[in-house]
């Protein structure tokens, strides 16, 4: 195998090569179509723009669409894909060979429909029923949805359709990536890492957390990425506990700065990596170095135990054991799936086993392997996270941004 190449399903390829976008779209559409057959549903209707993009690659006002069900796609079991697009936006998706027809969306959320929501939901349901029966015959009943509010559920029932949960089948479909998806994701990771390099250059005492975070946000937008899912950057004492959101705290000499990129980048692929950096002007403290070493060890030990065929509970059993003092605030997840956003599976540390679910790791999954290390009441916390591809031979790192060597 050439240097830098990875092997997936018996074929070696260069993840730095450009993806074949038509092949990428066809692969994803076929994954959804196959899942419809496996789950015996006549169609799937998707409102979440992330899911719409997976199924047919149509993109439009994505962040707005995350919270306003203003457009949707309906794929029937034969693979026919009808995109119900926001008014006057047909021109955005006409070129997509994965979209067979474009119709205006029937909006029935309250802002758009006001007091006419029930009537609008009725029109929505009648049109979906017509499409599904035209393509799947009059016996078509079970329709999968990624989200469906009560008014829509009632309207579908009136048409004799039965809504079923679509996320179970969709998340399984999305979990296994093709070589083209890995190429697209690698391109997104490289762009994110360019943003991290700019952030590292801007990182100095006196800059506010949100000014530093803005460097990554701007780089993502400038390089053609999509949006930031969270604002998880904090510094100094604010790194402990984790999940403080970036604010106007002014970063001090010797502060740790910890962050989690959580961005949706180029091609719509997520890049979810975390780092902790030392702010110049002071030597690292023993505590900072100890926590960083533990987090580094946890991530890399756990990357080493990921292999296709292993169950989540086996992985949890073999996972790195943090010292007792760091357990109360440790990350719940050992790793989670990633694609167009965070997705199935969620592999949970044994300390949280009561709420966990089991499953099997499979070749072609991409996982983010996580660590947060900080003691309750401690002065700082370290967040590290790497994005890895599961191949037949084990996990291969896709993220390549260096760790802060002053902390090692």
């Amino acid at each position, binding site marked *: 195998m050439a240097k830098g190449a990875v092997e997936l399903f018996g074929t070696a390829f260069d993840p730095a090569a450009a993806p074949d976008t038509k092949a990428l779209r066809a692969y994803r559409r076929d994954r959804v179509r196959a899942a419809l057959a496996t789950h015996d549903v006549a169609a799937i209707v998707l409102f979440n723009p992330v899911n719409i993009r997976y199924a047919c690659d149509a993109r439009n006002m994505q962040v707005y669409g995350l919270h306003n069900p203003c457009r949707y796609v309906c794929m029937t079991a034969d693979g026919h894909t009808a995109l119900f697009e926001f008014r006057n936006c047909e021109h955005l998706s006409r070129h997509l060979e994965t979209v067979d027809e474009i119709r205006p969306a029937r909006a029935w959320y309250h802002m758009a429909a006001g007091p006419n929501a029930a009537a609008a939901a009725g029109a929505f349901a009648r049109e979906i029923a017509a499409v599904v029966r035209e393509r799947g015959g009059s016996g078509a009943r079970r329709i999968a949805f990624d989200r469906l509010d009560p008014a829509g559920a009632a309207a579908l029932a009136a048409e004799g359709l039965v809504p079923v949960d679509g996320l179970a089948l969709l998340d399984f479909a999305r979990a296994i990536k093709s070589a083209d998806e890995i190429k697209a994701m690698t391109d997104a990771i490289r762009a994110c890492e360019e943003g991290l390099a700019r952030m590292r250059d801007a990182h100095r005492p006196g800059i506010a957390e949100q000014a530093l975070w*803005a460097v990554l946000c701007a780089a993502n937008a400038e390089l053609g990425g999509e949006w930031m899912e969270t604002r998880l950057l904090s510094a100094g004492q604010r790194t402990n506990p984790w999940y403080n959101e970036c604010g106007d705290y002014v970063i001090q000499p010797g502060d740790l700065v910890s962050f989690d990129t959580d961005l949706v980048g180029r091609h719509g692929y997520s890049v979810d990596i975390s780092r902790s950096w030392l702010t110049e002007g002071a030597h690292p403290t023993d505590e900072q170095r100890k926590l960083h070493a533990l987090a580094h060890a946890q991530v890399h030990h756990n990357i080493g135990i990921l292999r296709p065929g292993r169950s989540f509970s086996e992985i949890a059993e073999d996972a790195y054991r943090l010292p007792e003092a760091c357990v109360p605030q440790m990350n719940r997840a050992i790793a989670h799936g990633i694609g167009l956003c965070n997705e199935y599976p969620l592999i949970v540390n044994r300390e949280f086993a009561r709420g966990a679910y089991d499953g099997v790791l499979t070749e072609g999954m991409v996982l983010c392997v996580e660590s947060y290390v900080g003691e309750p009441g401690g002065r700082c916390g370290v967040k590290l996270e790497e994005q890895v591809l599961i191949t037949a031979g084990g996990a291969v790192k896709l993220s390549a941004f260096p760790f802060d060597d002053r902390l090692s």
Partner: protein
Amino acid sequence: MTDAAPARVAPADVHEVARRSPSMTLAEHERQPDMKRMRAYRLARVQAELKRHDYAGGFFCDPFNVRYATGTRNMAVWTSHVPARYCFVPAEGKTILFEFRSSQHLANGIETVGECRPFIGWYYMTTGVRQEEKARAFAKTVASVVNDHGGGNRRVAFDRLDPLGLDLVRAEGIEVFEGEEVMQHARSVKSPDEIAGLTHALAVCDGGIARMREALKPGMTENELWALLHETNIRHGGECIETRLFASGGRTNPWFQECSDRVIRPGDLVAFDTDMIGPMGFCCDISRTFHTGPGKPTAEQRQMYGLAVEQIQHNLGLLKAGVGFREITEKSFSLPEPYYPNRYANVMHGVGLADEWPVIVNRSDWDTRGYDGILEEGMVLSVESYVGATGGTDGIKLEECALVTRDGYQLLSTFPYEERLVG
């Protein structure tokens, strides 16, 4: 709730508050938005709507609704599509926040939250094969909270509830009602504190637009320019940008093409719609169109720009407390023929923490999408225009943000029009 929550913007205050754009860092010597009073006002608005519908309370998971009802925020974009936290708002009393497991500390010190509990998620990624078990636990929690706080009333509003949860919640004897209606109506009328916060956010947005105007030159990509607005917003504590409606040259017609790596040329129009969720979560939704030098705009570009300004001014003039949505639709500016087919999707829409109720449509869309209602003092509206001929080479996007007052309106957006394109 509290008598500190004024129901309306006092008329005498409107102009001062609307034009002021307060500083948001510590300044004991200046009047600033009172956050505690703002939270109290918002919670009272939600509870008034709950009572009006005779609901025991509401479960809300849209992060914009959670922020409005409680004043708390956590991973707002991610939770826009992943229902990972909820709040319960009883018809009276403090809220219960069901927060993402590891984020319990974020609501510390927020007085609208009586209690913070870990949320048991039942979306597939966290539940896997145990989805039904987790959804059942959610339904049991709903029932127990309603039993404890509903005083026997089991009518409850939900802003989002997927079929699995819906069936299980109903099986617990809960009557499920539309929560978006509650929240959209609560959110529609703004307090003076909200207007002050919004004008601060708009100042940040104007700052970002000014940076784009200053940086605009041939040879840049659309993405490079658009990134400046992102940077400004985040640097000043803003949240995110909802869309990527920034286009140049031929990509400005038809509208709704998304920002790309197209290189901007001399003579191009550059049109954008900020759709920016700014500092304190206030939505800044304004549109402008620039002309890229060197060279002068064409006569057609200037004519289209003039029409867009005329449309905006005409429609702003219709704003006044007490006016009906239908009346606005009927009296709204009618674009001449080559431009009508490409008209913007609506005449105006509400704005607050995001685009909000109401949406007031164009005349020819009334039968399919129109609904009536009445403008109230304290509503904030984005007034829209897009002018571009069918098959035309480019187009103009303009949009202004205005506060509805007793006598008319007060413009909140202030970024100047493009001199070279005016007149």
